[in-house]
């Protein structure tokens, strides 16, 4: 072997070594963990908020009130002292307005996040009827079901999007506390032992909702300026129906939105 061969070999070996050295893994560093914090409510400038108010009226012939026969459970009959009880869905106020209408901001508030209030919404069972008949809760807000009756009830919400449950509540038992994780309009609630009992729970993501009372009015306060779709839901006459309206609110503005329902055919 002569000198040239040696040189060539040396070259090849050194090249190989160099390559090996270069191919060493680059230092793998990991970024520090980003801290994911719990959902913070979007701050709202309270000085600019507006308000939507309105009235829900009823058009056409009033539905004939249907008497509820509670003779299945004497305890229920007793609670009403023998007075006839009528289905809430047939109720129309004396002034031609509708009670039990759930009015809420359907869209327009998606850019805001809201924390669920810590106080629960209470649903009472009184005289084998739900009180209130229509109610709204926010997502993850506690719904507290209490019973003032001497008979056993079971509370059976039948949602489409949320998880279904069905709990028995004997007289004097502790209140049942549950939450709904997903927005849903409306969740019917029933008692399998007293089939006439019916409540509707609206689960929404924002606090902008209201239920009309005996005067048929509602008001939604604390709305930041913007354009909203407001929906009214009612089960008047027995069949659920809804109406939409769009409303734009300027800073500190107060707008009126009126709805008018007919009994479903």
């Amino acid at each position, binding site marked *: 072997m002569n000198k040239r061969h040696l040189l060539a070999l040396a070259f090849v070996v050194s090249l190989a070594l160099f390559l090996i050295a270069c191919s060493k893994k680059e230092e793998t560093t*990991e970024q520090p*963990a980003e801290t994911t914090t719990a959902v913070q409510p979007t701050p709202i400038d309270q000085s600019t908020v507006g308000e939507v108010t309105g009235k829900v009226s009823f058009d056409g012939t009033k539905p004939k009130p249907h008497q509820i026969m509670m*003779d299945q459970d004497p305890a229920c009959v007793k609670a009403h002292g023998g007075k006839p009880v009528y289905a809430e869905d047939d109720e129309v106020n004396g002034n031609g307005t509708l009670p039990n209408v759930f009015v809420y901001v359907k869209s327009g508030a998606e850019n805001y996040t809201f924390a669920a209030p810590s106080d629960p919404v209470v649903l009472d069972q009184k005289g084998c009827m739900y009180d209130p008949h229509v109610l709204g809760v926010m997502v993850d807000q506690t719904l507290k079901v209490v019973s003032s009756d001497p008979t*056993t009830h079971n509370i059976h919400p*039948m949602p489409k999007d949320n998880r279904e449950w*069905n*709990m028995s509540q004997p007289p004097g*038992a502790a209140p049942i506390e549950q939450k709904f994780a997903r927005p849903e309009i409306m969740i*019917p609630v029933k008692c399998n032992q007293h*089939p006439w009992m019916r409540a509707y729970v609206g689960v929404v993501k924002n606090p902008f909702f209201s239920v009309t009372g005996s005067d048929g009015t509602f008001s939604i306060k604390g709305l930041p300026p913007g354009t909203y779709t407001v929906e009214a839901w009612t089960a008047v006459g027995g069949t659920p129906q809804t109406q939409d309206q769009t409303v734009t609110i300027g800073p500190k503005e107060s707008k009126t939105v009126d709805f008018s329902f007919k009994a479903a055919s």
Partner: protein
Amino acid sequence: MPENPEKDPVIGQSLALYLLVAVLVLVFCLGWALWEEFFGLRPWKTYQRAFVARYEAYLKKQVPVQAAKEKAIEASGDYQSLQQQLAAMKNSTAPQAKELDDQTARVDARTTAVLNVLTTARAYVGSRVYEIEHTSSQSGKASIQKDLDRYKAGPFVLDLPPAEAGGKSERISVNFDQLQDEFNILQQEKGKLLLQKAALLRPVSELQAKVDSYVKDHIDGLTVESLRGIRKKYEDYDVKIQQVNNPDAGIVDRCESCHVGIREPVELTRKNMGKDAMAGAFTSHPDMELLHIHDPEKFGCTPCHNGNGMDIARVEKAHGHDEHWLWPLFPKENVEAGCQQCHARDMMVDHAPVLSQGKDLFMWRGCMGCHQYKGYNAEPEELVSTERSIEQLEKDRATDQLDVQKSIQAGDQAPDNETAQKLYLKANELQVTISKISLQIDELDRRTKYLMMDAKKVGPDLKEVAVKIHSDWIPVWLDNPHAWRPTTRMPRFRFDEDELQAVSAFIWQDAIKAALPQQPPGDPVKGRQSFETRGCMGCHSVGEGANRVGGWFAANLTRVGEKDNYDYLVRWIHNPRERTEPYCPYEKRDLTADDYKKHGLPFVFDHEHSKCPNDGHELQVEQMTVMPNLRLSIQEARDIASYLETLKEKDPSSYPAVPYLNDPKLKEKGELIVRSYGCAGCHEIAGLESEKGIGTELTVEGSKPLEQMDFALFVREAEEEGWYNHKGFFEHKLAQPEIFDKGMVKAEGEELKMPDFFEPIDAKEVKAIPELSAQSHEQIEALTTFLMGSVTSQYPERYFYEPSGQGKDIQEGWWIVKKYNCEGCHQFTLGQSSVLMTLPQYQTPDGKGQLPPRLLTEGARVNPEWLARFLANPSLSDSDTDRDGVRNYLKVRMPTFYLSPIEVRKLVRFFQALSQQPIPYIPRKLEPLTAQETDMARALFTSQAAPCLKCHAIGLPAHDQYASAPNFLLAAQRLKPDWVRHWILDPALIDPGTAMPSGLFKQAEGHSVFAGPTPPIFKGYNGDQAELLVRYLFELTPQEQQRLIQMSGKNLMPASAKPATSELRRHSPHRAERALVGMLTPAH
């Protein structure tokens, strides 16, 4: 030699340049070959490198995300308290552990000292013992022994370190035995110490394990530690062929050489693996659960997906898309075809909805009417083979009888007693054999009967056409059934006018002529109520187009009044299995009243009277339809029929008259056509009952060589357009069967026979694949998938899914479930929804309460013997059949399917198997109630707080009108006690969404205790109260129930209850629903 004036061209010319160039080119070629070997044919190397890079990058990104999640979990209270607990425990055990460790160390030191001496000594002793054993002379042995004894006597000097903390070292001298003892003692001592330490630390280590796995158990995804582990694995990744090799099945799959991430524990999507086409190769398997069922190490990839698992030199080759590869990769939309070759016996394949749909469609669409397919429509074939067996047995019996005679005769004349006895014995044996054969024949006879009960036809019985149909309507229907009823499964045969007339005439003249009893009209309003609530809509629909409501399984009934006789319709609704005349397969004709009269018998035929009066063979006594009997009163049947009549769009008389129907010449021609088109595959037709299907057998159609598929004139076109493959053939054939007649010159009657099952959206426009509705496309895709998977497998049969036991029961059960459309009303698994569940009248809270029971845990719920009884007769009563045996409070009713015992047995086993319940069922023995316990149970049942009797029926009509749950009296026979116990504790766990509320019991001191206020008698009771109720329910007698009712008294039923109002309420549970039910059917 003279001077060369010119250079010699041969010698002078140099070829060096040429040679050089040639050699250079050669070297280049060799280099090329090397490149090809290492890179050109190894594209997977690039894939793997790319994968490793991308995967690493992705993992790197994932680490902080998961770290944050971990932090959140570590911050949780549970974890913190665990940590504190652990720390406290560690602190408390630490000093003791240290002490133990120190002791161990001292023992170790002493052991070492002993061993130092012992090792040498043992080696010496060992060698001497060997010598003794191998020395032959006794004296030699003795001398070595002596030597050895001297050695053993020692002394061996030991320098031992201190035994106690702070003790002194010692020096002792011992003999060999003592030395060994010393060592053994030390060993024992060490063992004890170690055990002590382990016992001390066990709770600590258990808690430690809990803490360690806490994060892993609670995190969504992988922990940072395991992510790092994966990264480490890939840091030193070795690029090489990744293959699954299963020589047992001949599987060599290298798919994972490119699809590296298919089994990675991290879920990889296309999105996070890059933007180029390669990213598609790096995703995780979309259904990891499938991989858990089918271990890739055993099954590889190609048995399910097809492709060429071995050849990974090119992507197309690996996917088997090159010519001459028989198993190209299944396209995405037909990927489930791969399941079929092993799951051919399953009607329902989990994880494969498309394939399952295809299997179902093959039955529902009536494909099996013409095309044989192993497993489908098995009854007729089995019937034939059963009859053959009977014939053979009868022959054997006759021979045996002759032999008996002969043996006896021979015995009588035998020369000696011994021989005679032998012959008599033989005669006796034969007589026993004959009895056995006779019994076997009886059994087979019964089997024939059952098989005839189970044999069904896809289409209606055409023998009844004359009593059922308005004659003018027949050609209208035959011309294009889809035009008349778009959703029908009856396909369109491409009849021309002549054929149409001939077929119509044949069917009309071939049918039975009889008179039906006249039926008075019913009340259509009531009929509509019944139709919408009795469960008819689980299979049938009404309304057309967008207005269509109801099930898909059976006919749309909107226009049924335009074609059917009212009288026939009433009979059909009242009992669809009722036949005008029974059919005798032996005589191959329908029997008339005369046949019965001849033998002095009344013209009565049903399952109890199913033998032919002429020859004693089993008759077909019922319509071969799957439609069940709803056990409605004749009045309700009239109401429903009247209601259906009101839906028709026009009067039957408005169809053009068809005078030719009675032309006898047309009949002959018609029969030929009907025969050649295989109509008898789906319909019962007089004279054609035993016709065979006219189509090709399709069991292994997917592996039929392409060359043998009849592409007709479309080979070139198909090749150019890329559908010259099985998929293309099936799709085109299904979408438009006549396409392969296009351009062909054929004589009349030679055209392709397969009818059009799917109607083009626009019939005028002729296209290779006509435009079909999305639903048709879906069905074609499902059927194509099914057929593509129907192959002769190249894998050993032991790889097929052919389970025994419960797996087999489930397999067989699904065939029946699909056959009778049980899923129209019932839910078997949570993902699947019944037809009724989707109907509007069952959407409201009260509507949901009216749904038929879900059968999620049916096998665990009911006693199989009871279930068999119930399936055979759901009214559970022989006299009062217009009721539901269990849930009479529901309007919807479990009908009678007249299942044969074969199918009942299969269904019962199916339900038991679905719930992993053993068969036979041996009930748990329940402890009898003491008098005290009976009183307690009564008290609980009648207390105001226990709502059981509010919903559960008790047999009193005034109470049961409100009932929404079955009578407890059924429990003992119907239910299994274990299930009942679980059920009353928390029904929502068994049947989510049930009306039965949870929270009736709470746990206290290891027992379940009633949640409400308990009656005073329970004071001091320590037993399980749920178990008490179960025991009470299973002991419940009618008398006891009466007693309960009396005890409850007013609580159950107020005196003020007025049957009139309650009747009204019962029928309209809530007004909202009532309104909806009205909206269901379109105005007319």
